[in-house]
């Protein structure tokens, strides 16, 4: 009896101990997620002690969230994503090298492209190969794809037409997200060079790059076979609705086109006629890496799961369901792959592909190229200047990214400064403190009432604030992720030395001022109009509040769509009612910035309107009656009564509104697609975000955000003081 009890206990304990939960973060497309869940469910059934939790994050967010959580010492056991995330992750040492767990035999079963190496170690095992660009054509419009660029232009011209004879083009020969460097660099190969050398250096100041810039421009301006403004969504929508004969897009888009019932074919991006070379799409992989924080206890089941997820069977399942090209060489021989027509074509495209670089420097290259390339396309730079500057900027950004600032004498000062300041605060605060204690007894009720809220607010804000303060005097960056140290005030120096700070600051001030001006004037104006007996007053009031109620992340994107040069509602309205020529809202710096401002005005005026409405209703009617008796006109009443009486109501709203607008990252980020064109639409906060999360310059970003804080603090104190002074006048 005793034995059985022990046995049961043992089994129970065993089962308890073995119950493992494995977290997997991924960025799979919607349809792929379904397959992944099925695969994991099947795995859980076979291994009842394992539970797999899947978490989806969009690619960029996956990267930044994983960085944050790995830093905090946690995070998922497995992370799945594109190969280029290996660069930063490996540099930050937040993923484990896989060589210590798997032998050469294991890696040998995969396409070498899917075994991602950096600095001599293996960091990721891919379950697919692809992610490459190709020419996708609508077979109904174009039976055969063009073989070279001459044909591309010829076919393109034939397919670009104005079907209803209104002088506007309805169908385009070619569409693609051509302003994005990823969608441009294949052409560099076609012109005979490559944007990145084997020693991981940018190679952008080349005659071939200049040729490439000119070529894309000529497709748009000279041959007119691509729309003037064409981001990914526009291109995709045109192709899906049969209004574009060809699109350059990746393998991920096939499912979308199948759903849209487009009969499409796949071909290589056409041969460049001048050089007889094929453009080289970047071929990457997506795969699994292991978090460096995985505990010893969990490592075995994690490895087991990784092995399963990259196995032939699982890969074939993805092939069957979502047309993924397996990385497993055995799986490639399976009939599921061999008989798949799309994959066969895709493999043919891949033959001219080049591997996607994984080093972190690639981000700097993309960034520098994007800025100059968009400036060239917008006509603000010659191709020659663009090529030169993109090379120079890429080199500069790589230098900044890899720079490890050394501590100088200031570091010692800072280390002493903190405790000294603390002591000083104690000494000088003593008097205040004793007064406080005395006051505490007298006003205990007040403290009792005020304390919980203040405690909550400060608990949340204090630690992050000091953390940032510390980071801002440190060399925290990509290369020092695991061991940063206090270095001194260099980051602040960099902030103030760079011209870009002053440009962006000026734009931010302009942004805030224009927005506030319109928020307040529009808000007050509408409130005055609506604050009288009107038919359907309540309905109007409710409808006007709607911009505030619908989540910003969708309305901001809608506005971006409305600003499109050819298809956007705004240009259509402008050309109809004011006979204006279409404005290039999204591809010219000033216009793009205006687009952001317009969107934000729309989002912000309801708040001010509601506040002003409330203020209006509290103005005693007798004042107006008295004014009327004195013979004041409506206009005079507005200036002499309404506005002054609204002032005390509006001041706090304006103060907070200014701060919120100054720090409003959403609109700029969504409407201008993260600062496009050419990083010309940034305000300070979006610039900070980019420095921290895209370029890994945490120290610099923290210093800049401290500067933002100080600017607002000075403004706030000044403004409040000023308005308080005016308050007492009344």
């Amino acid at each position, binding site marked *: 009896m005793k034995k059985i009890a022990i046995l049961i206990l043992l089994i129970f304990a065993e089962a308890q101990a073995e119950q493992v939960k494995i*977290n997997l*973060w991924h960025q799979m497309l*919607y349809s792929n997620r379904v397959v992944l869940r099925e695969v994991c469910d099947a795995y859980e059934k076979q291994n009842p002690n394992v539970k797999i*939790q*899947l*978490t989806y994050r969009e690619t960029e967010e996956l990267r930044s969230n994983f960085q944050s959580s790995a830093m*905090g010492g946690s995070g998922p056991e497995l992370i799945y994503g594109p190969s280029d995330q290996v660069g930063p992750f490996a540099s930050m040492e937040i993923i484990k090298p896989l060589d210590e767990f798997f032998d050469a035999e294991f890696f040998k079963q995969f396409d070498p492209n899917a075994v991602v190496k950096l600095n001599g170690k293996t960091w990721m095992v891919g379950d697919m190969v692809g992610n490459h660009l190709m020419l996708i054509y609508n077979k109904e419009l174009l039976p055969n794809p063009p073989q070279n660029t001459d044909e591309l232009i010829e076919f393109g011209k034939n397919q670009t037409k104005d079907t*209803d004879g209104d002088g506007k083009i309805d169908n385009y020969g070619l569409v693609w997200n051509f302003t994005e460097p990823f969608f441009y660099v294949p052409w560099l190969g076609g012109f005979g060079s490559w944007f990145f050398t084997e020693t991981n250096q940018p190679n952008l100041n080349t005659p071939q790059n200049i040729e490439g810039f000119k070529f894309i421009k000529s497709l748009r301006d000279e041959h007119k076979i691509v729309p003037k403004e064409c981001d990914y*969504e526009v291109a*995709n*929508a045109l192709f899906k*609705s049969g*209004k574009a004969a060809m699109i350059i897009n*990746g393998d991920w888009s096939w499912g979308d086109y199948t759903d*849209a019932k487009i009969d499409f074919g796949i071909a290589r991006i056409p041969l460049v006629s001048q050089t007889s070379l094929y453009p080289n799409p970047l071929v990457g992989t997506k795969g699994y890496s292991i978090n460096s924080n995985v505990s010893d206890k969990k490592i075995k089941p994690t490895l087991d799961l990784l092995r399963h997820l990259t196995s032939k069977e699982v890969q074939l399942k993805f092939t069957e369901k979502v047309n993924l090209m397996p990385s497993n060489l055995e799986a490639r021989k399976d009939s599921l792959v061999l008989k798949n027509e799309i994959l066969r074509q895709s493999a043919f495209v891949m033959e001219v592909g080049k591997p996607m670089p994984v080093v972190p420097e690639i981000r700097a290259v993309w960034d520098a190229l994007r800025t100059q390339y968009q400036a060239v396309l917008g006509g603000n730079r010659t191709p020659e200047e663009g090529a030169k500057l993109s090379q120079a900027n890429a080199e500069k950004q790589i230098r900044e990214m890899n720079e490890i600032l050394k501590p100088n004498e200031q570091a010692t000062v800072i280390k002493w400064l903190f405790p000294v300041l603390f002591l000083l605060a104690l000494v000088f605060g003593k008097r205040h403190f004793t007064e406080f204690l005395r*006051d505490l007894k007298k*006003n205990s009720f*007040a403290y009792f*009432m*005020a304390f*919980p*809220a*203040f405690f909550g*607010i400060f608990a*949340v804000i204090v*630690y*992050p604030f000091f953390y*940032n303060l510390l980071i801002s005097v440190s060399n925290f960056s990509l290369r020092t992720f695991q061991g940063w140290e206090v270095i001194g005030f260099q980051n602040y120096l960099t902030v103030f030395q760079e011209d870009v700070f002053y440009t962006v600051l000026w734009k931010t001030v302009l942004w805030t001022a224009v927005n506030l001006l319109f928020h307040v004037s529009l808000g007050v104006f509408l409130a005055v109009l609506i604050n009288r007996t*009107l*038919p359907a007053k309540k309905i*109007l*009031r*409710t*409808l*006007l*509040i*709607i*911009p505030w109620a619908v989540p*910003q*992340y*969708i309305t901001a994107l*809608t506005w971006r769509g*409305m600003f499109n040069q050819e*298809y956007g*509602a705004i240009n*259509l309205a402008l050309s109809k009612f004011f006979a204006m020529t279409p404005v290039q809202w999204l591809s010219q710096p000033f216009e793009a910035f205006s687009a952001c401002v317009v969107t934000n005005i729309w989002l912000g005026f309801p708040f001010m309107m509601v506040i002003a409405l*409330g203020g209006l209703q*509290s103005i005693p009617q007798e004042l107006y009656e008295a004014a009327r008796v004195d013979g004041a006109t409506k206009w005079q009443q507005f200036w002499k009564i309404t506005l002054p*009486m609204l002032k*005390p*109501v509006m001041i*706090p709203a304006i103060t907070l509104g200014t701060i919120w607008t100054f*720090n409003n*990252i959403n609109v700029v980020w969504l409407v201008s697609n993260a600062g496009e064109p050419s990083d010309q639409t940034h305000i300070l906060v979006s610039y900070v975000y980019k420095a*921290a*999360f895209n370029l890994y310059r*945490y120290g610099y970003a923290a210093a800049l955000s401290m500067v*933002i*804080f100080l600017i607002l603090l000075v403004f706030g104190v000044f403004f*409040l003081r000023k308005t308080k002074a005016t308050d007492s006048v009344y």
Partner: protein
Amino acid sequence: MKIKNTEKWLIFTFLSVFTLATIYPVLNVIGISLRTDNAFQSKSLAFVEFDEPFEDTNGNKTRDENEKFTDENNNQKWDEGSSLKSFETLFTETSFLLWAWNSFLITLVVTLTGVVLASTCGYALSRFNFKGKQFGMVSLMTTQMFPATMLLLPFFIILSKLGLINSYLGLIIIYSSTALPFCIWQMKGYYDTIPQALEESARLDGCSRFSAFYKIILPLSAPALVITALFSFMASWSEYVVAAVVLQDPELYTLPLGLKSFQASLATQWGLYAAGALVVSVPVTVLFVALAKYLVSGLTLGSVKG
């Protein structure tokens, strides 16, 4: 009298046109949610198609007509390629209801916390002169000044040290605190307009300080409390960035997190996304409508002294 009437109708027409222009982007979102081809831009493309005949027939009509036309355009699309499929999928095939429930729970707690803390703290700031009051008032505002994106990393570090990742508690604390400063200011302003004599007489009748506040002042402040509740509600209902850092278990997702999962780089489920966003904004709009009466008086009466 006649002039007044024309003026009224002029203003009404202007406001109607302006309102239609204002809700046009939202109509766009509705359009996307009704499209069957899951494309973000289609609506504007459809606009092109139907645009031309309109110009011929009504060339010189006002903007008002144009907006109406857009409505008809919507209707036309309804007959052709539109459907409620996105909404159906949203409720049947995704965990939308679970997310909604999670969001509701969190928002409820945040709103209650916000109301309790802001009403008490605002009262203290309004009625008492205590040490550190000025400092407190100003520092409330300064908390709004730091770029929120830079707070994420430290937020995460501290929450994971406290074991609050994947828990609602962490989220609730952060949400409550972010909404509080505005609410406290707001409450304080409102209390300022209520004469102190009210409590004094209550105290003479033997009320304790707290019950004077609780029984006399609080009921009088209903409009301001409603605003506080509404702001706390807004702060948590559609917040995404912090939630994305704190919540990783899909079972715990809030609405904005769930919605974002329809969005993938280069392959967004636009139909579902738009439908979801619309459903998310329904409670907010309903609240606004229901509370409009208080909204107008509560938000600002407070700040007007005398």
